[in-house]
């Protein structure tokens, strides 16, 4: 096939380091019993499709590289048969009526699927790297094999996500009884109404949203809704109304809890607030309106995968969750207005605050702070499609977060591309790191940090707004 030594060694590295790892994950995946019947067969199909394309890839590599990988392949073949047998076995003795999927198994299934999606990205990036140095016909076969792996991995990921999705109504099941009992206790007449409760979202979120919802509804019953007498005196219908409406907005779910009770009340939101932020959600309370109180909870659809925008600042990559990104655009330094030590840009009708990411994160002093981190790029260099190019002072990008008056901008050197990422926690030692929501492992095996936009706003933008007001 006329492959040079370098290519052969690249393949050997690929086969040695990537494939066994991938296979380990596939084998583990196949061993997980999933008991949702219809999803189960769909998942089994998806897994075997991934396995099939994995083996095509594996065979392809063995056919084109030095013989060193053949042992691995034989081993993998044995393992594959084993895991397929496991899968069939599991499918056989799972009880058809058993719908409750073991949560930790579901979680590891999800994380495996997410990792496979990342592996797929890694394969694609390897393929891109070696494309130019291998003969064209080989390159196109490889590309095809990877495309297929890509398609199947995505199918599997989607199926796993589907299993994870349950209707939000699961979290509402205890509410009607609770409201009935509280009404009787408090001598009030309270009606509870649901809208859009069949909206589905991640099982973990549905499970963990129940408690904060109960607290909020209890509060509405106790402190919000008045007794029938009081209500009649102020011209309200004697029965109070608590309305919970759910709707999807992009990658988020909005749960709006509205009651027509009294406006002024003493609400301690601390517990609820922290429960919601654990789910990477936000909570807004509007109790100043004439007709009661509205609490809006905004939750991500899923905790596992998120569409993100990759940006670069002073040689470092960061991922920005796309949910709140309105737009990103090139700007010139002249467009940035300076007022004291705060910066603004004109965004349509508004002057919005902006921060330089490299200033907020002290990226220019990175060389003093970190002695061993990779990509010790010079300050005046940036990465463009994995190539190092000169950083141009006249070419900046701003990423606009949020809309209207509440929006703000992050100034970066480069906006790279959008990517679906599996956000991982930074673990118990690093979870307190300010303004960072987590990390993911990029195609070339680097840890890339994911920005926490809420924290960036409260830390860097809110003080600016207070000063301006």
């Amino acid at each position, binding site marked *: 096939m006329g492959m040079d030594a370098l290519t052969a060694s690249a393949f050997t590295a690929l086969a040695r380091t990537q494939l066994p790892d991938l296979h380990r994950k596939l084998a583990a995946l196949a061993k997980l019993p999933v008991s949702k019947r219809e999803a189960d067969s769909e998942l089994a199909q998806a897994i075997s499709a991934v396995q099939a394309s994995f083996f095509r890839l594996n065979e392809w590599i063995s056919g084109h590289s030095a013989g060193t990988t053949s042992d691995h392949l034989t081993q993998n073949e044995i393992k594959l048969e084993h895991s397929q047998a496991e899968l069939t076995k599991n499918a056989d003795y799972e009880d058809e009526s058993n719908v409750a999927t073991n949560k930790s198994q579901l979680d590891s299934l999800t994380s495996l699927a997410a990792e496979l999606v990342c592996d797929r990205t890694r394969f694609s990036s390897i393929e891109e790297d070696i494309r130019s140095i291998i003969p064209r016909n080989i390159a196109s076969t490889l590309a095809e094999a990877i495309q297929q792996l890509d398609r199947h991995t995505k199918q599997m990921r989607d199926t796993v996500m589907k299993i994870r999705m349950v209707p939000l109504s699961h979290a509402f099941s205890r509410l009607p009884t609770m409201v009935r009992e509280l009404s009787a206790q408090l001598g009030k007449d309270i009606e509870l109404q649901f809208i859009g409760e069949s909206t589905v979202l991640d099982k973990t979120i549905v499970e963990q949203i129940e408690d904060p919802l109960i607290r909020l509804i209890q509060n509405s019953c106790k402190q919000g809704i008045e007794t029938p007498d009081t209500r009649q005196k102020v011209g309200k219908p004697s029965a109070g109304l608590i309305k919970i409406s759910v709707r999807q907005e992009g990658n988020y779910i909005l749960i709006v809890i509205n009651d027509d009770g009294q406006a002024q009340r003493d609400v301690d939101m601390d517990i609820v607030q922290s429960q919601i932020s654990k789910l990477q959600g936000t909570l807004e309370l509007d109790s100043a309106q004439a007709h009661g109180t509205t609490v809006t909870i905004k939750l991500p659809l899923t905790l596992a995968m998120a569409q993100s925008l990759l940006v670069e600042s002073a040689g470092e990559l960061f991922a920005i969750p796309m949910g709140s990104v309105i737009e990103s655009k090139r700007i010139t330094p002249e467009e940035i207005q300076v007022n004291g030590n705060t910066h603004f840009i004109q965004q349509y009708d508004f002057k919005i605050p902006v921060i330089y990411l490299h200033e907020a994160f002290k990226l220019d002093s990175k060389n003093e702070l970190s002695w061993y981190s990779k990509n010790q790029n010079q300050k005046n260099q940036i990465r463009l499609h994995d190539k190092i190019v000169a950083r141009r002072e006249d070419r900046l990008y701003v990423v606009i977060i949020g809309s209207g008056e509440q929006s703000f901008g992050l100034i970066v050197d480069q906006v790279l591309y959008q990517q679906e990422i599996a956000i991982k926690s930074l673990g118990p030692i*690093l979870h307190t790191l300010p303004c960072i929501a987590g990390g993911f492992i990029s195609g070339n095996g680097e840890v890339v940090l994911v920005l926490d936009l809420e924290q960036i706003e409260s830390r860097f933008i809110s003080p600016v707004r207070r000063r301006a007001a």
Partner: protein
Amino acid sequence: MTLDLSNRSDSFDSANSQSEQQTLISNGALKTELEVENYKFFSFFIHDTEYLLPIANVEEVTNLPSISFLPNANRFLDGAFHLRGSILPAINMRKISGSPRGEPSPESRLIVVREAGLDFGLIVDRINHVVTLSADHIERQTQSSYPNSENFCSQKLKNGNRFTGIIDLSKLLTLITGETNLDLS
């Protein structure tokens, strides 16, 4: 990028060829000798000073992985790396020990350790060998043998006139997580 790949293959091969090192770092093999485990230590160098680490805490030793910068992190943390899907912090042991600035070299290693259920990595300049000690070799560290060692060593090994500090991982954890007013610079 092609270079990157061949490097990966190189490092894989070199790790294999250094079979002596492999036996040092396969914790599983060492754990079979449970009864003496507490007295087995892993020896390594920070700058030009030798230190010891209880082998029971050593999870894995690897070549320096790709380390990503952590903005606004504790100053002893050099960055984050990933090990089989988990993101973990890497401690700059030269900074901890007050040694002069170092840089990655072919001998640099990352020692992944576990303490109090937490995994983290130590960036060291060179790994040495495993030593087996009896209890009477070990002394409580009373005063510092070298700069700052009292901040992260609580015991030392006495060998004739030579003392070697034994790293206390719980002290290291305090240094990287807790507020500290120590000035080690």
